[in-house]
């Protein structure tokens, strides 16, 4: 009986090894680590959809380096704990590059695992800390919080001339990072910050904190967090009749912000990279048209497109170099200049930082559309 079992086990093991060996030779595996469920689900799904769309388009043209692209998705739910599990899983699957994740926190938790296993990673996370380790595997496809903070502070002080500024954030590493950066930039410009408050993401009830702000009479409330809280903050701000501008940082830019705030969304101001519909590039128009045709919806925001740009740059490097060696790809990407991406030219610096910072300020109009005001 024992002999039979071990024979069976050996056959199975050999069989599996054979299958995985032939499998590995035929495909190039690209991982997606994104919050496909949970609070940031629509952002995560857009990243997943975008990557799968590009993979499909490549495969239709014969794949890359003569191999099919296989996308392996892992849902990190936007949390660090799940991100660490995803990182191990994707490494074990044998991916050569990982696209994502959406939040800085989840990206940071997975970063080191990818670096140790020589797996490339490209993320839209904007927290400054993501590039501080100088991992050669990491490429940021968006921009740094500090760049956005500088722009925001300048806009507040020199354009809007706000006199009483209230800053809010949640506890995530992205959000506190952005809020701290904005505060320090504002201090450089001698702006009058009357309050810095933190709220707990997901708590939904922010009336207590907002009532406190009301007593301080701010003329602007800046929120450096995500759209779920942003939409509710805006709605509760108007419900409490706090007469101040609402300015949201980049992660407020999501259709759910408008859905949550309802009619209160009108008049709120968002600072971000150009949103998809404002991208002037032909590549962007084509990608959006393909995306609509395949999924019958719009990508949630610019972030999915940024991640797709990271993926396109990696695929471009593979084609140029005709290699799957991640170190060589990384060296190539570090000197990449003006690769025509969907969100504009893609160039990377030596530390994996994307070179470009072009921000816009949008105001939400009566018909819930965006208008560029700065």
């Amino acid at each position, binding site marked *: 009986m024992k002999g039979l079992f071990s024979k069976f086990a050996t056959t199975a093991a050999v069989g599996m090894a054979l299958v995985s060996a032939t499998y590995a030779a035929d495909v190039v595996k690209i991982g997606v680590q994104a919050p496909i469920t*949970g609070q940031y689900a629509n952002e995560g799904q857009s990243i997943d959809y975008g990557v799968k769309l590009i993979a499909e388009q490549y495969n239709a043209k014969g794949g890359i380096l003569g191999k099919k692209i296989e996308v392996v998705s892992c849902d990190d739910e936007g949390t660090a704990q799940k991100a660490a599990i995803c990182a191990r899983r994707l490494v074990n699957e044998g991916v050569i590059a990982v696209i994502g994740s959406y939040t800085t926190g989840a990206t940071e938790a997975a970063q080191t695992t990818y670096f140790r296993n020589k797996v490339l990673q490209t993320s839209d996370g904007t927290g400054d800390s993501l590039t501080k380790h100088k991992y050669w595997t990491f490429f940021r496809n968006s921009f740094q919080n500090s760049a956005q903070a500088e722009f925001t502070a300048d806009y507040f002080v020199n354009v809007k001339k706000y006199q009483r500024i209230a800053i809010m954030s949640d506890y995530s590493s992205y959000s506190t990072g952005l809020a701290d950066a904005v505060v320090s930039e504002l201090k450089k410009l001698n702006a009058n910050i009357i309050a810095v*408050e933190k709220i707990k993401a997901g708590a939904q009830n922010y009336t*207590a904190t907002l009532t406190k702000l009301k007593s301080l009479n701010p003329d602007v409330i800046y929120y450096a967090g995500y759209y779920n809280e942003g939409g509710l903050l805006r709605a509760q701000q108007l419900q409490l009749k706090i007469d101040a501008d609402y300015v949201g940082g980049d992660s407020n830019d999501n259709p759910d912000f408008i*859905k949550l705030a309802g009619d209160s969304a009108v008049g709120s101001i968002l600072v971000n990279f150009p949103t998809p519909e404002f991208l002037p590039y032909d590549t962007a128009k084509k990608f959006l048209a393909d995306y609509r045709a395949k999924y019958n919806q719009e990508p949630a925001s610019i972030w999915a497109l940024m991640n797709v740009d990271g993926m396109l740059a990696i695929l471009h490097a593979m084609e140029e170099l005709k290699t799957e060696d991640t170190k060589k790809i990384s060296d190539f990407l570090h000197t990449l200049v003006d690769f025509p991406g969907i969100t504009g030219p893609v160039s990377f610096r030596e530390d994996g930082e994307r070179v470009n910072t072009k921000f816009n300020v949008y105001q939400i109009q009566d018909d819930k559309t965006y208008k560029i005001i700065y």
Partner: protein
Amino acid sequence: MDIFLQQLINGLTIGSLYALVALGYTMVYGVMKLINFAHGDLVAFSAFVGLTIYTQIFGEGVTSIVAVVTVFSFTAALIAMVGVLLERLAYRPLRTAPRLSAVVSALGAGLVIQNAVMLIWGPNMRVFPSNLLPSTVYEFGGVVFTFTQVMILGLSSILMVALYIFINRTKIGTAIRAVAIDQDAARLMGINVNRIIMIIFIIGSALGAVAGLFLGIYYRGITFDMGWQYGLNAFVAAIMGGIGNIPGAMVGGLILGLFNAMISGYISSQWAEAFTFILLIAILIFRPTGILGEKVAEKV
């Protein structure tokens, strides 16, 4: 002063929602000595059910008393049925098993409900239409409150008073109290214990359903995993008030909401949670059975 009053209203609104959810925990604990960890997920489930009933029967954009009454009563009835089902499938087979098995079963049932909600309605956040209740805003000398808040405070007070009278003044209420004290003795007195437990689950789940609907209407955004957070807060409220004690759950919920609002408003929102748990620890040190909890000799 008006800032203080505003914080009072903020705190009372969220506090009465905690209280409604806490009642579900405390009633089940009182009778079965079981922490029903699936209760929070049932609350989230009810928000989704309510949203679907509203959009399917009335369509978005309808504000009418008929719609409000239908949505609340249908959802409460449906969730009550789910609660009864939960007890039959997940708890009754384990009634004589060690208490830990029942707690694990409760956690599992919670996960099943949560994932069922995710599979039915998807992982994305869903948004309640803003006009189920009129969006009237009242203002009295700097203090602002909405019609929804009035509804939340009004309806939850009515429900809690009604429950209190039901438990203390009716025959079934007396039976519930008897079962809570001693199940075997109650059975010997001719009380159908299974029926009493079913009634407990019907009432607890229906109250949770009302809370879930209000959460959806007040905050608009609902996600499949929101139950855990509200469940945990309500659970803390139930313990503060004295778990197993019905007025205790109401007091605990209101204290939790008010305390949170005051700390956020006067000290810092960053400290709200820390102070809440300091309060919980302090209450448990000085009154181990909670604010209104009765002394029970068998507790260690």
